[in-house]
């Protein structure tokens, strides 16, 4: 695709006839407009045949693809559904989500439109068009800019030289392409798809290919925020999720800090041994520990209930996670279990920071008459805080979405009659999971995904503004 052009190739620079040959009098927008209509036409006007062929190839390829993948014959009535190719039918599907439901006819079940497949294909077509649009803009800008440079007295550049330059710079794109392709199909496409589903009626009552899915605008958002039973569930779960995230983060951090400070004390014998023991909850996979705790706190057979009865503290077994009359008991126990799971990570982090605080700080404080508590309050805590703050925010986000602990420990229980498809300890995430997988309310689930994304996203943005990541961009 590099050198197709003969006359200009040998001397791209400083040819006196160059500007002449490229018709200097032409106003700048003309080649740009020409390229906007037929890709590459502007380059042709600029006498850059190679470039023109390059851009035209994209144009021709797009049109050809559409024609070959569709059913285009002359003299036939055209409908996008039956005649459209990859792009036309794709966009038609994205806009209408199908028009022909599956029907029972004399010849059997007809093949109706599968709205979700149509939507996904339409998205792929749209993404492809977006990529092509970049090439289109590139061609228009290139044509106009090159002409502007010529009119301003610049030198001509052969297409070959241009593509040579481009190839040099293309290494980054080639190296990135495997990761990029994976991300586009496994992350970007699903994310866009998920956003679209939030505006449809895709749910268990309306499953393709049996039924057609349609666009419903903001109806799902209205459902969650205004229908009383949904709004109550959402509000209740949101409040508990925030409480959970704050308390879980604060308790694990505080406990981790205290233990780390204790272990750093000179009085402690065998600090390494203690530290290794305390790291165990972090090293053991959380799913295993949570399931073990779930068994220990099992109301009917679990050892803790049994022990309480044996010791005589309670008269009957305590149903920790299944007693609908005491949701706060389940919540409290879940927080305690999370403390067990979460403190070692902060302990390890803070331990690392403590090791790097110079002793001279403490000595100076002692000379000034500060007691141990004051030293802790005014030296240890501020220094630790500064280093660990980004991780505290990350931990907050993690706890906000802490699917593992809640789902494995309580499965959202105990039941809550006021909630729709949720229990008293359900977080937004576990509720979302139940809505999608167990209840197949895909549209409501998609709305929840967006809500969670907005909350988590804004926290992350706040956090990012503090870090150097953005500035280093």
């Amino acid at each position, binding site marked *: 695709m590099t050198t197709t052009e003969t006359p200009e190739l040998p001397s791209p620079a400083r040819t006196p006839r160059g500007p002449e040959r490229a018709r200097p009098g032409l106003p700048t927008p003309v080649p740009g407009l020409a390229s906007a209509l037929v890709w590459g036409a502007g380059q042709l006007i600029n006498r850059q045949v190679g470039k023109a062929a390059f851009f035209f190839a994209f144009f021709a390829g797009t049109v050809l693809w559409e024609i070959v993948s569709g059913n285009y014959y002359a003299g036939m009535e055209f409908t996008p559904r039956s005649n459209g190719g990859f792009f036309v039918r794709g966009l038609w599907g994205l806009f209408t989500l199908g028009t022909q439901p599956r029907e029972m006819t004399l010849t059997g079940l007809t093949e109706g439109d599968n709205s979700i497949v149509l939507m996904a294909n339409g998205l792929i077509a749209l993404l492809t068009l977006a990529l092509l649009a970049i090439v289109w803009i590139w061609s228009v800008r290139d044509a106009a800019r090159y002409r502007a440079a010529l009119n301003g007295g610049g030198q001509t550049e052969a297409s070959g030289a241009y593509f040579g330059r481009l190839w040099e710079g293309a290494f980054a794109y080639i190296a990135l392409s495997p990761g990029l392709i994976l991300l586009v199909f496994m992350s970007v496409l699903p994310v866009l798809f998920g956003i679209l589903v939030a505006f449809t009626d895709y749910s268990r009552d309306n499953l393709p290919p049996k039924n057609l899915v349609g666009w419903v605008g903001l109806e799902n958002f209205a459902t969650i925020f205004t229908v009383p039973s949904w709004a109550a569930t959402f509000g209740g779960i949101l409040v508990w999720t925030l409480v959970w995230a704050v308390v879980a983060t604060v308790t694990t951090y505080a406990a981790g800090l205290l233990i780390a400070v204790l272990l750093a004390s000179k009085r402690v014998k065998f600090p390494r041994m203690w530290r290794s023991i305390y790291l*165990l909850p972090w090293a053991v996979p959380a799913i295993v520990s949570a399931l073990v705790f779930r068994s220990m706190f099992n109301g009917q057979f679990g050892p803790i209930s049994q022990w309480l009865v044996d010791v005589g503290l309670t008269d009957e077994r305590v149903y920790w996670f299944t007693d609908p009359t005491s949701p706060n008991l389940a919540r409290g126990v879940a927080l305690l279990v999370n403390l067990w799971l979460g403190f070692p990570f902060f302990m390890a982090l803070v331990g690392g920071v403590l090791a790097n605080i110079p002793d001279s700080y403490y000595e100076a404080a002692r000379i000034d008459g500060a007691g141990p508590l004051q030293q802790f309050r005014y030296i240890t805590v501020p220094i630790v805080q500064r280093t660990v703050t980004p991780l505290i925010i990350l931990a907050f986000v993690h706890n906000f979405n802490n699917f593992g602990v809640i789902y494995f420990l309580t499965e959202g229980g105990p039941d809550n009659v006021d909630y729709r498809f949720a229990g008293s300890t359900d977080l937004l995430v576990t509720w979302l999971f139940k809505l999608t997988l167990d209840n197949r309310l895909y549209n409501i689930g998609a709305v929840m995904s967006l809500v969670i994304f907005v909350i988590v996203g804004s926290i992350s943005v706040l956090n990012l503004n503090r870090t150097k990541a953005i500035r280093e*961009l």
Partner: protein
Amino acid sequence: MAATPANPELRPPVNPNRPRRRGGTVEGRQRLRDGATGVLVHLVLVIVAVIVIYPLMWVVGSSFGPGGGLANATPIPENATFDNYLHLFTQTNYGRWYLNSLYVATLNMIGSVTLSALCGWVFARIRFRGRKASMLGILILQMFPSFLTAIAVYMLFLNFGLLDSLTGLALVSIAATLPYNTWLMKGYTDNLPASLDEAAAIDGASRLTIFRKIILPLMRPMLTFVAITSFTMPWMDFILPRLLLQSSGKQTVALGLFQMITDQYSNDFTTFAAGAVALALPITILYIVLQRHLVTGAMAGAEKG
């Protein structure tokens, strides 16, 4: 913003023998009080240790217990036996699940390390058009919690008939963590001296050679971090496999364990305990041995956003 720069050298997080806060007086009463505090401190440490260890001992003990039900699970079984482990690997699909998890984990590790190292290095070292835009895009993608994409992926796979594939699961897992891992790798490469690349480039090394021979060896600590996290993730992950895998022959260990404990709750607890120990043991050892890498890596990740 953070006090310690992302240090490429991993340093030991705790020096246990570091002298600190010596009790300044030599008075007898003071010494007595110090002694009392010491006892108190150790009392706290012992209590915490018991709380930490008891649940783990309980499940390990149960896995050797002769019983079967949850009610007679004890931390120290009287007639210890390996029956539960035998039962686990012969009577249940556990072995199959283990191999499935191993397959996904290996694929995830290789894919994640290769792709994120390559992408991170390109972002750190090469200036190209669209670099800022794509990095910002990656940053935004990274904020999107992975299970949200997972649910959309589930709906897509469901309609295209792609569910129930272990390779598909691995690909989704790689994509889910790629943005974050790329940021980690980029941040790490940023801190490597550029003079090394330049010297090699002057000597005529191609860009890929520089990457393979110079950058990759220097990135070892971060490669290790990404390798461990991406290898252990599929063993513990629940949402993605639960959404994307269906048939019983295609489950991963985490799914299988969860089913064991919900299906046959109280009558086959010891088999579950054996399965839990078989899953937890290798990962726990790996984490304890490589803890320094893991903690430093997490720090670097937070600093980079």
